[in-house]
């Protein structure tokens, strides 16, 4: 398959290793990865913060970058960015009264997938041939869990990783408190939610907290480093790409 990588602005700028790992997993499975150079940001931060007008040019740019029709699928290492495209683009295009954009979004959005849902749901692959001999607790990010309905796709992939020890995360489905600008606009509530998430991660005995979204990992990881816990926040793509000897 010819797969367009929707790298997302956050992964591109701050977490290139997660992007490289996404490429590695897709190429290992024999797919042709393309990275359209026109892509910037999907507009999620603007749209979710009340700046819909500012998000519209970014939405149009995304549709230009990925809507060429030469891609079999578009894949991103982020549930929330994919949720933005699949769940919010149709509504925002309609609200903008742009019929051409509505049509373009309708054609493109169903072909945009989060990495683990693409692997399990579209390709039917649960074992990507990874090896990662570490104790891992998996945090299901909210938008993947409740908007994209990823279900246990990420866990199925993790269970098939050689050498991994998957640990139970208490109240796993509770939000980590990131929520985009929520983390700074309601910093105190966000910090209280984060403290509980960090307590759960530490209580699990894991050395790695994994998730499908760099944004949640930036949040959880930022607190894990502040607390000098020694526990790392790692994107699931990096675990699926890993070929570490046990």
């Amino acid at each position, binding site marked *: 398959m010819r797969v367009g990588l929707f*790298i997302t*602005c956050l*992964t*591109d*700028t*701050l*977490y*290139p*290793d997660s*992007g*490289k790992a996404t*490429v590695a997993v897709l190429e290992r499975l024999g797919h042709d990865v393309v*990275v359209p*150079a*026109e*892509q*910037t*940001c999907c507009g999620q931060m*603007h749209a*979710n*913060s*009340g*700046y*819909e007008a*500012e*998000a519209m*040019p*970014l939405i149009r*740019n995304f549709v230009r970058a990925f809507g060429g029709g030469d891609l079999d699928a578009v894949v991103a290492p982020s549930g929330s960015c994919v949720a933005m495209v699949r769940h*919010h683009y149709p*509504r925002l295009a309609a609200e903008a009264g742009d019929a051409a954009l509505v049509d373009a979004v309708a054609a493109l959005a169903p072909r945009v997938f989060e990495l683990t849902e693409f692997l399990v749901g579209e390709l039917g692959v649960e074992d990507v041939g990874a090896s990662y001999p570490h104790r891992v607790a998996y945090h299901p990010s*909210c*938008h993947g*869990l*409740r*908007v994209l309905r990823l279900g246990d796709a990420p866990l199925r992939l993790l269970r098939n990783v050689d050498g991994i020890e998957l640990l139970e995360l208490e109240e796993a489905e509770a*939000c980590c*408190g*990131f*929520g985009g*600008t*929520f983390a*700074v*606009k*309601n*910093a*105190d*509530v*966000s*910090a*209280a*939610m*984060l*403290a509980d998430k960090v307590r759960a991660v530490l209580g699990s005995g894991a050395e790695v907290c994994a998730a499908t979204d760099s944004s949640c990992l*930036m*949040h959880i*990881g*930022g*607190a894990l480093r*502040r607390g000098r816990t020694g526990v790392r926040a790692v994107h699931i793509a990096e675990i699926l790409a890993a070929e570490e000897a046990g």
Partner: protein
Amino acid sequence: MTPAGGFPAAAREALGDSQLRANLRNATHTIRDKRAAAVAEVPDWQELREAGRLIKERATRHLDRHLEDLEAAVTRAGGTVHWAADAAAANRIVGDLVEATGQTEVVKVKSMATEEIGLNAALAGRGIEALETDLAELINQLSGDTSSHILVPAIHRNRAEIRALFQRELPGSGELDETPEALTAAARAYLRERFLRAEVAISGANFAIAETGTIGVVESEGNGRMCTTLPRTLITVMGIEKVLPRLADLEVMLQLLPRSSTAERMNPYTSLWTGVTPGDGPEEFHLVLLDAGRTSALADEVGRQALHCIRCSACLNVCPVYERTGGHAYESVYPGPIGAILTPQLSSFEKGETLPWASSLCGACYDACPVKIDIPTVLVHLRGKVVRREAAGAGGEADDPGERLSMKLAAWAFGTPRRYRLAQRTALPALRLLAKVPGLARLIPGPLAAWTTVRELPEPPEETFSEWWQGRRP
């Protein structure tokens, strides 16, 4: 980026109260688990939710017609219907009705609508004492406190606090122990006497049926049944969005509501009455139909679904924000996720302007809502409305010129690939500098300081993914 007032400030205060946080965590987790179990018993729960959503959507779409049908049916059954455009009108109507009976005290069924309009205070201003008969509302009334939860108004209180309150406030309660049985018995003895002498009762309504004129109140303690059957005069204050077209619609609603609210299979006391019946129950029945912002909320195609709410509180109980701040931080009769979308809309954004941001958009509320109100989408939609209001100079507590500027700048930078790469090349060295100088970020007011109070900034990479990709594929 951190507003001075509104929800963030009130939340900060609530977060500092460790007793409150423990009470709330216990209570919300208990109700949350019980609800999940009650819902899991119903194999067609998702279909029921969809049915509930469609019933409420149809009811509000043709609200004008249903309300006129309701008025005609209530009148036919011997009741009197009054229309109140706002809180002041509703309070005046109720006050006049009570005065006309010559009574100076009334008993009340727990009602969100009368709390919303501040009826008790309005009646007190006319020399009429309104006694709350719901146990938790009574607790709040006796302690001069306000509700912090739609269904469990005294969720922020524990047994020891309630025992002390009853010993102080309830005459003849004697030596009380802390068991729920003893506390309830003390309230029961106090209330029974008041029920028996009450001539006027005031209730809200969970539902009103347009085709029959039937009003419905659901409750767990039997106090509502006392109020709707014993006194001579019954006055019901009801938001206009509570109307349902057909009696058969209750079949769906009475399954959805108890499981979502109290995690019960069937509601304990479901009182349905249609006008008046000679020799049975009240001799006089008045229905006050309250608008108070509902018609203007109805005009918003995205926001109007907030009016579908059946006040079950499931969204409060599952909300990670409510769980940590409690209801008072929302500074509204309607707290939690539903309050965050109702309060600003009912008040035309005069109140609760910061509430649409009181959510991480985790979506737990939407999943729990028995009538499938897409609360996260409405929150985001209302954020847009507030941002546009503030950009136009409304001067509310959500006004944030710094944020407006940053957002415009970011949108400009993300607008073309060339500007985006330039922004990356600017941001990364800045981040490297912040990483090199510990504590520097905390000195920069706004988002950087807010972020770094409890978190480290990300460690900037040597090169971006795009740069790596360019080098890899020349």
